[in-house]
């Protein structure tokens, strides 16, 4: 390799030299790809950038988030920005979590053969098969707790030989569990009260009435999270 700070990866089969030490997402942008879909928070929370890769000479397919995983020499990768997985329609208030409600809405969970491929595919390291198994036996609380860290990237559902839509099942379990078993959070009640009472109306109106330039300025100045300590300039790659 001409430049020792570069490494070779393959995006959809085509070779690119990209900088060492950047994420797959940054490397793809470095290579000239522009994300219109399949990129969101860039922080590992939104689940939009599910990616599969296989390294040269290895038999296993790996599953990661493009915004979280660093590139490595010889990665053959592609993104899976969307998972076609229908979600069941339901009205939460009309469901009884004590019945076999998850099985009724997602009957394919009964097709689980416990191969655990979903768990191997999960970039969040969730015990996906275990929560599907809990759902199968009607243990809504366990399904909800085990699936809590799900970011709905959909990689589990893309890999499942039984065509289970795991992340939708987990979401339904969490909704049922929250509603039936958990106390109504005080901070949420307080915030909803503020919203209803018009506390933020003035600010919202100001924002809605702002010009494009004003919005851009606000966006540039925004504080997302207060840093604990001043950070050095991030290692952004420029071409």
């Amino acid at each position, binding site marked *: 390799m001409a430049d020792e700070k570069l490494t070779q990866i393959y995006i959809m089969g085509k070779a690119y030299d990209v900088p060492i030490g950047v994420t797959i997402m940054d490397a793809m942008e470095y290579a000239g790809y522009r994300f219109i879909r399949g990129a969101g928070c860039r922080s590992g929370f939104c689940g939009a950038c599910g990616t599969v890769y296989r390294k040269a000479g290895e038999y296993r397919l790996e599953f990661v988030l493009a915004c979280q995983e660093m590139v490595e020499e010889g990665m053959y990768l592609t993104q899976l920005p969307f998972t076609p997985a229908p979600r069941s329609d339901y009205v939460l208030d009309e469901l009884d979590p004590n019945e*076999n409600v998850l099985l009724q809405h997602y009957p394919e969970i009964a097709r689980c053969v416990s191969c655990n491929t979903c768990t*191997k595919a999960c970039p969040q390291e969730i015990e996906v098969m275990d929560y599907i198994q809990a759902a199968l036996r009607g243990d809504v609380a366990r399904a909800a707790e085990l699936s809590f860290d799900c970011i709905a990237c959909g990689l589990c559902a893309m890999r499942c030989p039984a065509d289970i839509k795991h992340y939708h099942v987990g979401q339904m379990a969490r909704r049922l569990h929250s509603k039936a078993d958990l106390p109504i959070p005080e901070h949420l009640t307080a915030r909803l009260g503020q919203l209803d009472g018009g506390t933020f109306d003035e600010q919202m109106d100001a924002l809605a009435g702002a010009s494009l330039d004003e919005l851009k300025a606000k966006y540039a100045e925004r504080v997302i999270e207060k840093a604990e300590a001043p950070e050095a300039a991030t290692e952004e790659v420029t071409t």
Partner: protein
Amino acid sequence: MSTLAYFPGCSLKDNAKRFEDTAFFVMEKLGTPLEELETWNCCGTVYSLADDDLMHHIASVRNFVRAEEAGSEDLVTLCAMCYNTLARVADRIHADDEERTKINAFMNEEPDYEGEIRVRHLLQVLRDTIGWDALSEAVVRPLNGLKIAAYYGCTLVRPKETGIDDMERPVVMADALEAVGAEPVAFPFAAECCGTYQVVDEPHLALEQSNRILRSAAVAGADVVVTACPLCQHNLEQALAVPVGEVAELNEIQVVYFTELLAAALGADEAQMSPIVRGILSKGVTAEGGA
């Protein structure tokens, strides 16, 4: 005394909860409590008969890995279907090193399964480990006068290799109930099929089959049919809604899990019994100390 690693299966956590609750009570009383595997998955539901269909045995083998992790050699089940699936897979994978290697290679995220787990139904544990004498000695409320028809169905006793008793004339469940004072009656449908999963697509087939079983037990004079399988129990309960016979007494037959009656005999209090068991005890038991 040590505990026994216990595999519940999905039904035991759902519509067969009282089967599990009463089994726990019985084994606690007998000093050999059941200890549920911390993590487990569906047994696979049915044993795949295809020669090369290893994929459908993985569910069972994964549970055996969990049992090995728990340091157990035995894995005890209550559900007859789970028993059948787990026991057949255990035998197969124990005997075939190549298949075990293949499955272990596929489950590369798990420790290798050594192939040594022994799957046992609770009735086997009661007969072979606890013994009928010890069971009798633990009785505080003998079920004297209660006529029971022990209904085994298919999967506990077939195939012969994994059956827990003689496949034509099983006695183990009747012996268990006899040990607690009940009177088993012989009836010809004890090991006939209840109609199994036909209840989903062709419910009338399961109903007819189950109704025949109930009728046979009633004609033999049984007060109650005793089961060891959530699916048999379900199908027989469905069939109860259809009149068993024209004679009024024949319609009073009930269906319960064998552990429900054992628990009653071993001193379960009323709150731990289903209304049906309370009803049976109030009518059927003539002995001292009856409920």
